[in-house]
C-alpha cells in the first residue's frame, strides 16, 4: 500500500453525524413503506437476505477496509452469533432481541481473543487464524448435542408479531434497523480517531507505530467490533429459517461475500460495503430464483476477480477517480 498523508480533518466533525442518522433512518423507513405497499412476503425475505449482507460487509470493512487485515472467518463469527441466539433461546427462553445482544457480546469476545492471539504478527497470520477459528468453532458446534450438533436445531417461532402483519415483516424490520446501526457504526469509526489510526496502520504499520499510534490496541478494538457485528448479522438467522445446522451456518458463501462485497463496493469507506452488498446480494437473490444454479456463485467469483483487478478501489473508487 502506498503511504499517503492522513486525510485532513473536516471543519466541523460533530455536526456531520446528525444528518447521516436522519438520512439513514429516512431511507430505511422509505424502504419499509415501499415493501409494505407491495404487500408481498417475498419482498421481506429477499430484503432480509440482502440486509444481512449489508451488516456483514460493513462489519468486515471495519477491519479489512480500514485496517487492512483480512478476516476469512466471517462464516465462523456469523455462526457464533446464530448459535448464541439458539443457546440463549434454549437455556433462558429469551427471544430475538436479547439473542442479538448476547450474540454481539460473545462474537465480540471471540474477535478479541483471536486478535489477541495473532495480531502481534503479520496480517496474513491473523487471516489464517480466522480461517482456523471457523474450523474449530464448527467442530465444537458439531460435537455439542445441546444445540443439536450436526442434526441441527429447530426454532419454533410465532406466526405473527404484535404490530406487524407477519413474522417475516418483523424480522425484516429488525434486520433493517441492524443494517442502519452497522453502517452507522462503520461511518462513526471512519470519522473518528480510531478510524484514522486504523488507516494509518493500513498504510504503513511500522510508521504508524513509530509515530506513536497504539497499533495493537486499535487493532483489538477493530477486531472486537468486527466480530460483534458479524455475530449480530448471524443472530436472526435461526429465526429466519426456523432451522439451522452447522453446514448452513458455517457456509463458505458468507465468507466469500463478506470479502467480495466491500471490495467491489469500495473498501475503506462506509458506503462501499452498502453498495457492494446491495448489488451483489440482489444479483445473487435474483440468480437464485431465475438462472438458479451453480452459475450464481460462479458469477460472484468472476465479478470479484475482475473487479479487484480492474477497479481495486471498488465502485466508489472508480467513480471517485473521475
Amino acid at each position, binding site marked *: 500500500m502506498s503511504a499517503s498523508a492522513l486525510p485532513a480533518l473536516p471543519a466541523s466533525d460533530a455536526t456531520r453525524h446528525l444528518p447521516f442518522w436522519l438520512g439513514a433512518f429516512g431511507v430505511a423507513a422509505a424502504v419499509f413503506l415501499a415493501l409494505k405497499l407491495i404487500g408481498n*412476503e417475498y419482498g*421481506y*425475505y429477499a430484503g432480509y437476505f440482502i440486509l444481512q449482507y449489508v451488516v456483514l460487509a460493513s462489519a468486515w470493512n471495519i477491519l479489512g477496509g480500514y485496517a487492512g487485515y483480512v478476516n476469512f472467518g466471517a462464516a465462523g463469527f456469523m455462526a457464533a452469533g446464530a448459535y448464541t441466539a439458539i443457546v440463549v433461546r434454549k437455556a433462558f427462553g429469551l427471544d430475538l432481541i436479547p439473542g442479538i445482544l448476547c450474540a454481539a457480546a460473545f462474537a465480540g469476545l471471540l474477535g478479541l481473543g483471536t486478535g489477541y492471539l495473532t495480531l502481534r504478527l503479520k496480517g496474513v497470520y491473523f487471516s489464517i487464524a480466522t480461517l482456523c477459528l471457523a474450523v474449530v468453532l464448527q467442530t465444537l458446534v458439531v*460435537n455439542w448435542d445441546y444445540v443439536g450438533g*450436526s442434526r*441441527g436445531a429447530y426454532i419454533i417461532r410465532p406466526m405473527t408479531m404484535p404490530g406487524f402483519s407477519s413474522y417475516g415483516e418483523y424480522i425484516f424490520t429488525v434486520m433493517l434497523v441492524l443494517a442502519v446501526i452497522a453502517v452507522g457504526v462503520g461511518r462513526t469509526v471512519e470519522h473518528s480517531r480510531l478510524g484514522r489510526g486504523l488507516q494509518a496502520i493500513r498504510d504503513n504499520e511500522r510508521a504508524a507505530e513509530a509515530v506513536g499510534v497504539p497499533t495493537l490496541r486499535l487493532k483489538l478494538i477493530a477486531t472486537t467490533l468486527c466480530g460483534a457485528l458479524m455475530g449480530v448479522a448471524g443472530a436472526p438467522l435461526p429465526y429466519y429459517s*426456523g432451522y439451522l445446522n452447522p453446514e*448452513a451456518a458455517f457456509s463458505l458463501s458468507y465468507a466469500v461475500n463478506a470479502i467480495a462485497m466491500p471490495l467491489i463496493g469500495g473498501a475503506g469507506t462506509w458506503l462501499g460495503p452498502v453498495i457492494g452488498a446491495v448489488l451483489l446480494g440482489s444479483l445473487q437473490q435474483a440468480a437464485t*430464483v431465475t438462472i438458479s444454479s451453480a452459475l450464481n456463485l460462479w458469477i460472484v467469483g468472476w465479478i470479484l476477480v475482475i473487479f479487484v483487478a480492474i477497479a481495486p478501489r471498488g465502485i466508489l473508487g472508480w467513480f471517485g477517480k473521475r
Partner: protein
Amino acid sequence: MSLITRRQLGRVAVAAAVAGAGQTPGLFPAHAQSANPIRIGYAMAMSGGLAGNGRATNLAYQIWAAEVNARGGLLGRPVQLVVYDDQTNGGTVPGIYTKLLDVDKVDIVTSPYATAMIAPAMPVVMQRQMTFLTIFGAGVNESFKYDRHFNMNVVGDNMKETYAKGFLDVVGMLPTPARSIAIVAVDNEFAQKAAESARFHAKAKGLRIVYDRSYPPSTVDFTPTVRAIQSARPDVVFVASYPPDSNGILRAVSELRFQPQIFGGAMVGPQLATMQAQMGPILNNLVNWDTYSPEPTMQFPGVAAFQAKYRELAHKEQVDLLGNYIPPYAYAQMQVLEQALKRVGRIDQAALAADLHKSEFDTIVGKVKFGPNGEWAEPRNLFCQFQNITDGDLEKYKRPGTKVILAPANLKSGDLRAPYGPPA
C-alpha cells in the same frame, strides 16, 4: 428455472408419448402450455452436496408430470412443475418458498430433498396453511407438529424404536449368537438417528456395545477408525454414513481385511450406481438399509415400467443410473398427490390434507398410508444383503437375487450369509 423445466418437460412428454419404444428423446422445443395449468412448486437440490439425489428426484417428478399430461392432465388441466435450485443451502429455502407462494402463486407445494432443506420451508408453508408433501425427510415434523405435513420416507414416525429393528433381527439370524456390536456414525441428522436406534435395539437384545463414536463429514482417512473398531473385536458392525464416507470406510475395511460376522447398517451410498460400480466385490455380504430392491416380494405394479423409463433418461441428466433409491418414492409421492386431488376434485388445501390423512394409496412402491403426524403409519426399513457380488457390473442390480431382502419378515426373500467379506 421454469423455462428449463418446460423445455425438459416438453422433451420428456414427447418421449413418453412415443411409449418408450426405444427411441432416444431429442431436444424438442418447448410446446405451448394450454390455459390454466395446475402449478406444483418446489425447491430442489440441483447443485451442491445433495444434488445427486436431488436431480434424480426431479427427474422422477418430470417423468410423472409428462405421463399425467399425456393422459389429459389432472382434473382436466395440464400439470406444470415450477422448480428452483436451493443449491443445498438451507438459507435460500425460505425465500424460494415465499416466492413460489406469493409471486408465482403456485397451487401446490412439495418439499426439497432432505431434512436440512425441508425444515427451513416449514414455517413459510405453515403460515400459508399449505398441504406439504415432503420427500425423504427424517423427523422434521417432530418439533413443528404440523397437521398438513406428509412425508414420503420409509422410516416412519419413531425412528429410534423402529429403524434398526430389522438390522438386529438379521443379527438374530446368525448361527452362533452375536455378543458384541460396534456403532459408528457420521455427524448428520439421519445417521445420528439411525445410530441412536441401533443403540436402543442392541441394548434390548443384550448385545455389548464395544465401540460407539461419531466422525465429522470431512474425515479423509478412515484407517485409524476402522482399526480401532477392529481391535475391539465386535461380532457385528453398524455404520451410519453418507456417500463420501461410506466409500472411505468400505475401502479401509477391505484394506484391513476386517471381516466381522455382519457388517453394514445405515450406509447411504451402496444403494447408488456409482458406488456399486466402484466397490464391486467389497460390497459382498454387506447387510445394509435400503428402500427398494427388485426382489420378487417387491414387484409392485408399475415400478418396473417406471424404472425402465427412468434409466433411459438418467444418463443424459447426469443422475444415478439405476434409480433404486429415491426415484421410485418420488414418483410414488406424486401418485399420492394425484390420487388425492382426483378424489377431492379441486385445489383445496384443507380437503387435500384430510384425504391424505385418511386414505390408503396404491403406488409403485406398494400401499402407502400416513399416520397422525404425517409419517408413514407403518415404517418399512428394508435390510438387504448384497450376495454373489464378484464385480462392479451394474446389470445384476436390475435383477432379483443380488440385493436379497432379509428384513422385515413379510418381505424376506432370502437367507443371511456370514461372515461379511468378498466371495471365496
